[in-house]
């Protein structure tokens, strides 16, 4: 008799137990969540699960951003557990954020029992309907025997191809019902097969184009970071082989080391003068895992007008979306870039040294503009100075930076020098104020010994500041570094440029006393008001092994430069206030802000 036949069929377990078991089998060690009526059975199963740590946030949006920070800093998927109705709707901002920045998340939402769906039951909402356009995929699980399969499928879809968030909506009766568990390895998807292998002929054509380039540039995006360490390694090798200049989007800072001579800085609306002019004048643009976002391209009909454009993306829908592409490579960035390296070596290509020398000479002339310089001040702390000091004093430490959204975010992106990927967690696509603090909670959860700093504004931080309590509860010593300029600075800057300095509703004159607030929440509060106080305050912040808010009072009317005014091209940057005053923005440009 075959021994296999004697194997007893595994006993049926409840839906809630299936959820926990599936998470364990997917290697999940941390969940960010908030309990409620429709997820009680899952929380009960979690109570018995010692190997999964649950971080109790103070608002569901915070759970999703924390999971994003966790995911982005580890390369693993982030997992969220929230209840039905408001639990799910509160999570929507974070889910949309993860979709635009391609962050792998598995969001489990409770739902009212199947018998009550559609009756406007208490805490019922159409979660799959609401999240359909802001997830990579979502499911409402109506059969407990499909639950394990759906969760495994969810992890697969969230983490492969172009990563993104998925939502799995689980009615309460399904959590109670008993059913069969299936292992992850048994899952094969019917329709989802992302194309990861590059086409050899296209790679060869791309490399030939690169070898013939006289004014080339690498334009690197978040896709290279998402493709993992192999992609980053290959990128660095490819740059070393070719000697081409490199720029990157906000999402890819650190993929190429900021200390390298080939690094031009970030490109786009607040990118460096040299990065944008190099983009504008290039003859071959090699876009690796970026998506020609409007903040990057500026005016489309004047975008790199002389360039042959190579575009590598794992998502075919990005090709030709905003910009006409001459050579498209739909593949995984790690595979495609390593293939480029291999082909370059095999064919013994040499970059056009003569042309490249001229090109670099031109780039040096743009660099000489020193577009990130600012007027130092003895009396007030300049926000740029504050970031420079934070960078210097945290140098050599194991640092992770998160940001909120606004001027401080752009200054952080311009000035903080990232040498490695996955070190900057920021909301790029959706531009979610309030992202950075909960993201820091997630990053610190994954890296308990590291220095995790949320570079914040006093406006953004008020959107999710209740998560400081979460940090206190779990002894996560995050640092909240507020560049406090008494204004919603970026909006104020636009009002100055486009709306005659009428600062409509952008003053934050009424704001909490952040030092007292920190103390009330169980954190440590510090303040720096004069440049001479700043270093000591930053050092104290770094040395304090507890959550800290450092309220840095900075110059109120500092503007973020350089800047491509809305509706302008890469080679029409403005560098100073004086140039800004002389700039007329067209009505069409005003719409694009």
């Amino acid at each position, binding site marked *: 008799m075959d021994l296999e036949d004697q194997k007893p069929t595994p006993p049926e377990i409840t839906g809630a137990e299936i959820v926990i078991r599936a998470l364990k089998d997917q290697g999940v060690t941390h969940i960010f969540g908030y309990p409620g009526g429709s997820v009680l059975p899952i929380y009960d199963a979690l109570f018995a699960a010692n190997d999964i740590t649950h971080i109790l946030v103070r608002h569901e949006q915070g759970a999703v951003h924390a999971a994003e920070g966790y995911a982005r800093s580890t390369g693993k998927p982030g997992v969220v557990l929230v209840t039905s109705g408001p639990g799910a709707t509160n999570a929507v901002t974070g889910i949309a954020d993860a979709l635009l920045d391609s962050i792998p998340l598995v969001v489990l939402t409770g739902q009212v029992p199947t018998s009550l769906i559609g009756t406007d039951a208490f805490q019922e909402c159409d979660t799959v309907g609401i999240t359909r356009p802001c997830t*990579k*995929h979502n499911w409402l699980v109506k059969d407990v025997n499909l639950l394990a399969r759906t969760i495994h499928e969810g992890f697969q879809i969230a983490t492969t191809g172009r990563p993104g968030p998925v939502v799995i909506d689980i009615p309460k009766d399904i959590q109670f019902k008993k059913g069969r568990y299936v292992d992850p390895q048994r899952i094969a998807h019917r*329709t989802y097969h992302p194309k990861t292998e590059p086409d050899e002929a296209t790679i060869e054509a791309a490399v030939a184009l690169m070898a013939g380039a006289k004014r080339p540039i690498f334009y690197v995006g978040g896709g290279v970071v998402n493709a993992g360490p192999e992609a980053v390694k290959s990128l660095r090798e490819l740059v070393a082989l070719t000697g081409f200049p490199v720029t990157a989007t906000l999402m890819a800072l650190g993929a190429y080391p900021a200390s390298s001579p080939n690094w031009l800085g970030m490109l786009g609306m607040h990118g460096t003068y040299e990065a944008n002019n190099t983009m504008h004048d290039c003859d071959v643009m090699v876009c690796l895992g970026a998506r020609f976002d409007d903040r990057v391209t500026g005016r*489309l009909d004047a975008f790199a007008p002389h360039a042959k454009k190579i575009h590598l993306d794992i998502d*075919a*829908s990005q090709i030709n979306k*905003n910009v*006409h592409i001459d050579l498209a490579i739909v593949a995984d960035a790690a595979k495609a870039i390593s293939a480029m390296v291999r082909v370059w070596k095999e064919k013994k290509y040499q970059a056009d040294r003569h042309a490249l020398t001229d090109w670099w000479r031109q780039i040096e002339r743009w660099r000489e503009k020193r577009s990130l310089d600012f007027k130092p001040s003895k009396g007030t702390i300049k926000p740029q100075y504050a970031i420079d000091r934070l960078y210097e004093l945290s140098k050599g430490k194991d640092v992770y930076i998160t940001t909120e959204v606004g001027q401080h975010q752009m200054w952080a992106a311009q000035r903080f020098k990232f040498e490695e990927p996955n070190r900057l967690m920021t909301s790029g696509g959706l531009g979610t104020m309030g992202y950075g603090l909960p993201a820091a909670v997630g990053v610190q959860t994954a890296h308990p010994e590291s220095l995790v700093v949320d570079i914040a504004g006093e406006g953004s931080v008020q959107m999710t500041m209740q998560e400081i309590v979460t940090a206190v509860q779990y002894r996560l010593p995050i640092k909240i570094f507020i560049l406090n300029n008494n204004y919603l600075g970026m909006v104020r800057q636009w009002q100055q440029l486009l709306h005659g300095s009428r600062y409509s509703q952008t003053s934050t004159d009424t704001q909490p006393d952040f030092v007292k607030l920190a103390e009330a929440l169980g954190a440590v509060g510090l303040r720096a008001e004069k440049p001479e106080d700043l270093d000591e305050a930053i050092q104290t912040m770094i040395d304090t092994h507890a959550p800290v808010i450092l309220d840095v009072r900075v110059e109120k009317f500092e503007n973020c430069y350089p800047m491509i005014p809305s509706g302008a091209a890469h080679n029409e940057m403005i560098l100073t206030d004086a140039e800004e005053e002389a700039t007329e923005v067209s009505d069409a440009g005003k719409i694009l802000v």
Partner: protein
Amino acid sequence: MNNNGKIERHTIAVLIDNEAGALARVVGMFAGRGYNIESLTVAEIDVSEHTSRITVVTSGTPEVLEQIKAQIARVVSVHKVVDWTIDKPGIEREMALIKVAGTGDKRVEALRIADSFRARPVDTTHTSFVFEITGAPSKLDSFIDLMRPLGLVEVSRTGVAAISRGPEAM
């Protein structure tokens, strides 16, 4: 994208897993990204495989149409997307039920025109006809235009169904 190209009208077939919300995923993408739907048909075509086929007629510049197809293909539950207008030569058919009310000469004229269009009366009273007509959408358009002065009361169209010529499947 510089969308200065000429507006074209394309018929696109989508093979999709017939799961809850499958149609909403595709239609929602059109609405969310501001694409146009001229007509839409959907039905399950394989019960055992749980697959449905959506035929959508849409219009846009060649760049926009390329985006539309890429965005549909990106929907996780989609098996396949085919453009009958450019990828493969296809046949398009649409069915309509058309109610015409009237008496006397107009009634006779309506019946005569219906006959030349091979439209079949499927309901007849002393004062009305319901015609069933099948054909390319343009044929239906002309028939409806001709019925207008003859007492057109109501139109119900199915939207386009399309399939490729020759032995191959989509």
